[in-house]
């Protein structure tokens, strides 16, 4: 038989030959250590982490080299968000039993393989310590902010929830404290501090059991937010029967496995109905109002345009009527003018016809007188003016004579020829015939 402490042979008196320790006592101590390890393992299996920690610490007091107990203790600390504390247990474990046979080596490698996670765990510890300092110093608002930030990133951090719950209780907000403690009970089913706080808030043991059962619905890996309570309450409402709601005590009964699958369809249906209702009540009226407003704006725009067009049309119509009136007036004026012109023409003709042509005769007399006075140029002009007024035999006769006097026989001959052709029965024919025959 070998000594459990140093491995040397055990003497017949039951003591080690090397270290002198009683084999019986050591065996009993090691056996007790194993017992508490088994107890801790059982408790950890049902998420009674606080109970498991107590049992495992006892196991380590009987045998500090109980590797399994130390490794499990480290794992529980890790689960509760105390990564560094868990790491220290694993380091001590690997120190007692080096080599890959010790699972602590695997845990250490896992943690060390992700430096970011390790650093985050360190930051978590620092932030919690800061929050704790704020809470102790009375700056609770800062502690609230810090803790909420921590818990949104580390939803397993039991100590953070407990401190938050304590702050909420002190702040007179038991509902939020219960919410935080519910999370604690989801991770650590028999957390003594959480149960103590719940009792202080007036919850009976049956209520606490009900809270523990309902906490199983919480997704323990989800970030801690204020909506969790609402989600949980809605689920509780739909999962309880009407009778249960009427009788609150019956909602906290004996343990019963809940079949969540059968409620999935209900959840989906309720979700759809709520979605449709929210669309119908919130989004649709807004959309309709918006569409109506757009229509009204469009209608106003079109009305403005139509009124502008109407104004333009009426302007154009008035312009058209003015122009038509002007055209009619002008036409009437033109017609009147034409009539007047015609009348004037006719009157002029009448006057012309009726007035005796004294100017012609006067001009002819003046031409005859000018020839007598041998002023032939004057006589030629007189005759030409007389011929413009009226053709006549005297005018041609005196014109021919004036040209003769002026030594222009050719023109004189032309004037006589015209006289002879136009007036063959003139009294001057005989006289000019002699001249023409020459």
């Amino acid at each position, binding site marked *: 038989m070998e000594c459990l*402490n140093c491995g040397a042979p055990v003497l017949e008196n039951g003591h080690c030959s090397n*270290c*002198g*320790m*009683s084999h019986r*006592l*050591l065996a009993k*101590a090691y056996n007790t*250590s194993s017992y508490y390890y088994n107890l801790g393992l059982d408790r950890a299996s049902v998420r009674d982490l606080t109970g498991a920690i107590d049992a495992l610490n006892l196991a*380590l*007091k*009987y*045998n*500090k*080299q109980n590797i399994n107990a130390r490794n499990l203790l480290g794992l529980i600390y890790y689960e509760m968000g*105390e990564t*560094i*504390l868990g*790491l*220290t247990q694993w*380091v*001590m474990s690997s*120190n007692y039993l080096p080599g890959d046979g010790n699972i602590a080596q695997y845990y250490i490698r896992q943690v060390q393989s992700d430096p970011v996670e*390790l650093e985050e*765990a*360190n930051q*978590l*510890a*620092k932030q*919690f*310590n800061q929050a*704790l300092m704020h*809470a*102790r110093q009375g700056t609770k608002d800062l502690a609230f902010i810090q803790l909420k930030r921590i818990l949104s990133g580390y939803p397993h951090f039991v*100590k953070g929830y*407990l*401190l938050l719950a*304590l702050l909420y*209780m*002190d702040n007179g907000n038991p509902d939020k404290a219960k919410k935080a403690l519910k999370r604690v009970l989801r991770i650590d089913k028999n957390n003594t*501090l959480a149960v103590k*706080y719940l009792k*202080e808030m007036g919850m009976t043991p049956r209520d606490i059991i009900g809270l523990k059962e309902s906490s199983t619905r919480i997704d323990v890996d989800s970030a801690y937010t204020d909506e969790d309570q609402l989600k949980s309450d809605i689920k509780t409402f739909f999962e309880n029967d009407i009778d249960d709601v009427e009788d609150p005590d019956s909602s906290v009964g004996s343990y019963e496995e809940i079949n969540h699958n059968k409620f999935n369809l209900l959840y989906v249906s309720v979700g759809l109905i709520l979605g449709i209702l929210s669309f119908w009540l919130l989004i649709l009226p807004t959309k309709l109002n918006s569409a109506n407003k757009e229509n009204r704006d469009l209608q106003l725009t079109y009305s403005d345009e139509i009124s502008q067009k109407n104004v333009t049309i009426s302007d154009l119509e008035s312009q058209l009527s003015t122009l038509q009136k002007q055209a009619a007036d002008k036409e009437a004026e033109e017609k009147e003018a034409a009539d007047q012109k015609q009348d004037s023409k006719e009157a002029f003709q009448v006057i012309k016809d009726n007035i005796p042509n004294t100017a012609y005769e006067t001009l002819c007399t003046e031409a005859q007188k000018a020839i007598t006075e041998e002023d032939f140029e004057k006589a030629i002009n007189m005759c030409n003016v007389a011929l413009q007024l009226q053709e006549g035999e005297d005018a041609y006769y005196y014109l021919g004579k004036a040209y003769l006097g002026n030594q222009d026989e050719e023109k004189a001959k032309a004037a006589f020829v015209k006289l002879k052709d136009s007036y063959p029965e003139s009294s001057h024919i005989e006289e000019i015939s002699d001249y023409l025959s020459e």
Partner: protein
Amino acid sequence: MINFDEEIRKFKPSLEIAQAEDAIYKNDVKDITDVLEEMLQQLNDRQSQ
């Protein structure tokens, strides 16, 4: 009734990485073996005296 100040004193700071080494070295929790060794040591000392 819970006294906030009393309760807050029960909360201990979390262990940071910088403190981990000290925590490991100072973790001198005695188990039964250590107690027995001490007892034997004391017995041997008495016998030698």
